[in-house]
C-alpha cells in the first residue's frame, strides 16, 4: 500500500540475553505507521516505549521480527541505516544532555552535515529548523549551554529536524518542562504535522499530552501493544488503562462525572475545547 511508511513486524527484544529469566523489553510488537499520521505512543515507565522507538531507526536490532521502511527491510545487510536515521528522526528523552557544540548553529548543522549535506545547505537547513522550533534567531551564535532548559530542548529537536526527516519520533519531549513550555512544545509538534505533513510519533506517559493532537494512540504495557486505535476508542477502556498505571485525559473524567450527576453530555469528548462547548451547550 502506498501510504504505509513504516511497518513493524513481530518485534521481540530482550536486553540481558545472558539471563533467561529476564523479562522481554518488547514482546511480539507489530504496527504500521501511515504517511502524515500523528501517533501517540503511551505506556507506563518501563513498558518498552523507548526500546521500541530505538528500533524504528535501527539503533537496536530486534532478536526476531523485522521493520520495513517504505517497503525495504532496514536490517538487511546492505541497507543504508545512516540515511534511514535522517529520514526517521529520533529525538531522545532529555535530548538537551546530548548537546556538545560551541554555538547553537554548529550544534544544529551536526546532523545535516553527517547526512552528507555541504556546509552552506546545512546552514540553511539549520536556520530553517531553528525557526520551525520557535527559537529566536539571536540564539544562533550563543552557546547552547547558556540557554534555558526548554530552549536547549528545542535546539536538540531542531538538530534532528534539520536533517529533514519524514517521520519525527519524539521520546517524552515534554518530560520536565513547565506547563507553559509543555503546551508550546505540543503546539509546535502539531504544527509540524499539519503544515508540513511530517509523520509524528509522540511518546508520552500522559494521555493529556496526546489526546488532542493524535490521530491514533498505541498503548503499551510490559513490552506488548495493548490497544492501537483512535483516541476515543482507546479511552473507552478507562478501567484497564488505570490498571496499567495510566489514565484517560482529564476531560474524560469530568464529562463522565457530569453524566453521572444527570447532565446529558457526550462522554466521548477528550479535548478541552470540545468539552467547553459541550458543557455550555448542555447548560444553555
Amino acid at each position, binding site marked *: 500500500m502506498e501510504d504505509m511508511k513504516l511497518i513493524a513486524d513481530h518485534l521481540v527484544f530482550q536486553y540481558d540475553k*545472558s539471563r533467561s529469566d529476564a523479562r522481554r523489553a518488547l514482546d511480539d510488537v507489530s504496527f504500521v505507521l501511515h504517511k502524515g499520521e500523528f501517533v501517540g505512543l503511551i505506556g507506563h515507565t518501563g513498558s518498552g516505549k523507548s526500546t521500541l522507538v530505538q528500533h524504528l531507526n535501527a539503533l537496536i536490532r530486534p532478536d526476531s521480527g523485522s521493520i520495513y521502511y517504505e517497503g525495504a527491510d532496514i536490517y538487511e545487510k546492505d541497507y543504508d541505516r545512516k540515511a534511514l536515521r535522517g529520514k526517521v528522526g529520533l529525538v531522545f528523552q532529555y535530548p538537551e544532555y*546530548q548537546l556538545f557544540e560551541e554555538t547553537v548553529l554548529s550544534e544544529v548543522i551536526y*546532523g545535516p552535515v553527517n547526512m552528507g549535506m555541504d556546509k552552506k545547505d546545512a546552514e540553511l537547513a539549520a536556520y530553517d529548523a531553528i525557526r520551525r522550533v520557535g527559537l529566536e534567531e539571536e540564539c544562533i551564535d550563543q552557546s547552547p549551554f547558556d540557554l534555558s532548559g526548554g530552549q536547549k530542548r528545542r535546539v536538540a529537536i531542531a538538530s534532528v529536524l534539520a536533517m529533514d526527516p519524514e517521520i519525527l519520533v519524539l521520546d517524552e519531549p515534554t518530560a520536565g518542562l513547565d506547563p507553559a513550555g509543555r503546551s508550546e512544545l505540543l503546539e509546535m509538534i502539531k504544527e509540524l504535522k499539519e503544515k508540513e505533513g511530517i509523520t509524528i510519533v509522540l511518546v508520552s506517559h500522559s494521555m493529556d499530552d496526546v489526546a488532542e493532537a493524535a490521530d491514533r494512540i498505541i498503548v503499551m504495557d510490559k513490552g506488548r501493544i495493548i490497544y492501537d486505535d483512535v483516541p476515543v476508542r482507546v479511552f473507552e477502556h478507562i478501567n484497564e488503562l488505570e490498571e496499567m498505571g495510566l489514565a484517560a485525559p482529564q476531560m474524560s473524567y469530568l464529562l463522565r462525572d457530569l453524566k453521572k450527576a444527570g447532565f446529558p453530555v457526550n462522554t466521548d469528548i477528550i479535548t478541552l475545547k470540545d468539552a467547553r462547548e459541550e458543557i455550555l451547550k448542555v447548560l444553555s
Partner: protein
Amino acid sequence: MIRDITLGQYYQKDSLIHRLDPRTKLVGTLAYLVSLFIFTRPLVFALAAVFLILVLILSRVPFSYMLKGLKPILFILIFTLIINMLFTRGTVIFSWWKLNITIEGLKQAGSMGIRLVLLILGSNLMTLTTTPTRLTNAMEHLMRPLKLLRVPVHEIAMMMSIALRFIPILLEETDRIMKAQLARGADFESGNAIKKAKSFVPVLVPLFISAFRRANDLAMAMEARCYHGGKGRTQYKPLKYKGRDFAAYTVLILYIAAVVVLGKLC
C-alpha cells in the same frame, strides 16, 4: 555494546559465597592470586582450577556469565600467548622464516595462559559476588593499620566506592549518548584513526558534562546529610565474621597448604 563488559559488576543472587564476609573474600582472593604466581607446577594449576570451579558452583553465578567477563581481555590474553610462544628460547620444534616455536615456549605460553585465565576469573568472581560498597568496606577494615602512618584510609575507601558506584552509570550514559548521536547521523566506525577519534568528541563532551553534574549533585547531597569525613563515623552494617567465614578460612588454609605441598613436591 558497551554494556557487555561484566568485569567488576555485581551479579545479584543469594548464595553461600554472596553471604560471606567481604573481608573473607578479599583475603581469599588475594591469597588465591598469590598462590597462582608463586607455584608454577601443572598440578598446582589443576588444583587451583578445581578450587575455582567449586567456588563458582557454590556462588550460583552462571558459567556463561563468567565467560562473558573474559571477552574484553581476550585480546591481551592472545597477545601474551603469542609473545610467550615466539620469544622463548629452547628446543625448536617448528620453524618458519625467522620465527621459532620451542617446547619451552609452548609450555611457557600454556602456563601463562592458564594463570591469566584463573587470575581474571578469580578476581571477577569476587566482584560478581560482592557489592562495591561491601568490598570497599572490607578494604577500609583491612587497611586500618595504615592509619597509624597517616594514610587517609577512609577517604581512599570512600573515593573508591564512589568511583565503583559510578562505573555502570557512566557506561549506561555513554551508551545512551552514543545512540543519541547515531540518531543524528554520527558514524563511529568508518574513517582513519584521526577521524574516528574526532567522531567521539560529540560523545565525550556530553559525557564529561554529565559526570561533573553528577559529581556536583553528589557532593551537595553528601554535604546536606552532614558528611564530614571518617572521623567518628559509625557504620550502618558493621562487618562481623560468622561461622561460615571461619569455615571459609579453614578451607582457604587447607587449599594453601595443598598448593605448597604440591608445589614443593615435584
